[in-house]
C-alpha cells in the first residue's frame, strides 16, 4: 500500500536540490500578476459584484489567480516532468525493476504533482499575506480546497501524459484546454458576464468548481452549494485517475 512512498520521496529529493531557486519564481510571478491586474486593471475596474457582495478587484483577481496557479503548477509537473521521467530519462523503467508496480508510480506522480502545486500555492499565500490580502480569509479551508484542486488537475494531466508521444502534444493541452478554461471559469471576471448558455456549460469546468468554493472562502464569505462543487471535484479526480491509470498500463503493456 505504501509502495508509492519511495517514488514520491525520489521526486522530493530531486526537487529539494532546486527548491530555493524555484521559490524565487514562485514569489516573483504572483507579485507581477497582482501588480498588473490588481493595481493596474483594478484601479480602472474598482469593485466587482459577487453573489455575496462587492469586493475590490484586486481581491477578486487574487483569488482567481491562485486557483489558476494551482492548476498550472500541477499540470506542468504532471505533463512535462512526468513525461521526462516516464519516457525520456526512463526513470520509471528503472523503478519497475524493483518491487514496485506501475500503479504505485502513477499514484506517486499524481500526489507529487499535487504537492509541488501546493508548495507554490503556499508561497503565493505568503506573498498575499504580506500584501494584506488575507484579512478576512478562511486560509486553512481555502488551502484544503486548493489541495483537492491540485490532485484533480494532476490526475487529468496524467491522462494526457499517458497518450503523449512527445512534449509537443502538451502544447495542445495548454492552448486548447487550460487557456480557454482560464477565461471561462471566472478567474478575471465573474462568469455572470458570459452569455447564459455559456455560463451553464462553464459552471461544470473543473476550474469553475474550484473557484466557486475557493473565492468566497478567500474573501471571508460562506460559499454556496459548496458540497456539490466538492463532490464534483472528487468525482472528476476519481474518474481522471482511473482513466490515466488504465491508459498508462496500456502504454506499458504494448511495448
Amino acid at each position: 500500500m505504501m509502495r508509492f512512498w519511495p517514488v514520491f520521496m525520489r521526486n522530493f529529493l530531486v526537487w529539494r536540490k532546486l527548491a530555493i531557486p524555484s521559490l524565487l519564481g514562485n514569489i516573483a510571478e504572483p507579485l507581477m500578476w497582482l501588480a498588473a491586474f490588481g493595481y493596474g486593471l483594478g484601479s480602472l475596474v474598482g469593485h466587482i459584484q459577487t453573489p455575496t457582495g462587492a469586493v475590490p478587484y484586486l481581491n477578486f483577481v487574487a483569488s482567481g489567480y491562485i486557483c489558476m496557479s494551482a492548476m498550472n503548477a500541477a499540470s506542468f509537473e504532471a505533463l512535462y516532468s512526468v513525461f521526462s521521467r516516464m519516457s525520456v530519462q526512463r526513470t520509471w523503467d528503472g523503478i519497475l525493476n524493483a518491487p514496485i508496480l506501475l500503479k504505485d508510480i502513477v499514484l506517486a506522480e499524481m500526489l507529487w504533482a499535487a504537492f509541488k502545486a501546493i508548495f507554490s500555492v503556499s508561497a503565493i499565500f505568503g506573498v498575499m499575506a504580506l500584501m494584506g490580502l488575507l484579512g478576512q480569509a478562511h486560509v486553512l479551508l481555502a488551502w484544503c480546497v486548493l489541495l483537492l484542486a491540485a490532485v484533480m488537475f494532476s490526475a487529468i494531466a496524467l491522462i494526457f501524459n499517458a497518450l503523449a508521444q512527445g512534449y509537443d502534444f502538451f502544447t495542445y493541452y495548454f492552448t486548447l484546454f487550460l487557456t480557454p478554461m482560464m477565461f471561462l471559469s471566472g478567474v478575471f471576471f465573474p462568469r455572470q458576464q458570459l452569455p447564459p448558455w455559456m455560463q451553464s456549460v462553464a459552471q461544470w469546468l473543473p476550474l469553475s468548481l474550484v473557484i466557486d468554493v475557493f473565492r468566497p472562502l478567500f474573501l471571508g464569505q460562506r460559499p454556496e452549494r459548496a458540497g456539490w462543487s466538492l463532490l464534483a471535484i472528487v468525482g472528476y479526480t476519481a474518474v481522471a485517475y482511473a482513466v490515466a491509470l488504465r491508459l498508462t498500463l496500456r502504454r506499458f503493456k504494448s511495448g
Partner: protein
Amino acid sequence: MLGAEHTEASTRLARTPQALLKCEGLEKSFAGKRVVKSVSFEIYPGECLGVIGPNGAGKTTTLKMLLGLLSPDQGLITAFGGQMPGDALMIKSHLGVVSQFDTLDPDFSCVENLLVFGRYFGLPKETLKSRIPTLLEFAALTNKGQDKPQALSGGMKRRLSLARALINDPQLLVLDEPTTGLDPQARHLMWERLQQLVQRGKSILLTTHFMDEAERLCDRLVVLDQGEIIALGSPKALIAEHLEAHVVEAYGMALGESELQRLHPYAERVEKSGETVFFYANDVTALLQALQDYARLRIVHRPANLEDLFLKLTGRQMREGS
C-alpha cells in the same frame, strides 16, 4: 581455464537441482505476429545462462516477460516459489536487473542513485549505508561517489547500474546486453566482476550479441531465432555437436568456382561470405597444403568457436534493425 569453471559449475548444479526461475511454453504476439514461440528454459542456482540470437529474435521480449513487465499470451513463469505476474513483487525482491538502456537518475550522485534505489526495496537506511561503500568499491567507483552519472564514462555508468542492481543482494541477476557499447578495458572489467559474482554463488541470466562474452561467461546458452529456441546447452557441447573442430578462413583474392570445387573435398563444409571463404573441417592438414598453391591468399586457421555456431544456426543474412 574455461574447462575448470565448467566442472565447477556442474558440481554446483548437481548439488542444487531446484531451478531459481523457470519458464514453460512462453508465447507472445504483437499485432498478430508471433515474436516468442513456446520458449521453455530454467536457471539453476550458481549458473550463468546466456540468451543469444540475432536482432528481433525475441530476447528482450522474453526477458520482459520474465520480469513481469509484459504478460505472456500463454505459458508459465515460476521463480522463488511464486508465479508471475501474481507474485511479481516477491519475485522482483530477489532479482537484480540491468536493462539495455541506462536508467540511472541524472539528478543524483552515484551514492544517491544507490540510496534511492535501495528504498524502492524497502531497505532501511542503516542497511543501505553499510552496503553502499562496498558496492561502490565493487563497481570500482569509490572515488566517484559524489559525482553525477553525466560525469561518468560509459563503462562506469554500466558498473553503477550493476551496483544498483545488487543493492538488494539479489540471488538472480538479469542483464540485458551488459557490455554493449563499452570499450575493451571496460568490457574486461565488467566480465571480471560478473565472474566474481558467479563465484560468490549468484546466478546470472544475460543476453548478449558478443559470442566471446557468451563463451567466456556462460555455463549454458539458449540460442533464440525468430522467437524459437533452436539450441540449448553449454558452449563447448554446442560447438562439438554442431561444428567441425577447425575453421580455415581464406581471403585476399577471389577464389573462383573451379578453385572452390577443387578445394571442397578437403573440408566438411565450405561457406562463402563476400570475398572470404570459410572451410570447416575436422582435419585441416590436407586443406592447408592445398591452399599453399594460391600465393596471394591470406589464411587464418583457428578452432571453431561460438560465432561460427551462431552463424551456422541463424544464417549469415542481415536481420531487421541490424
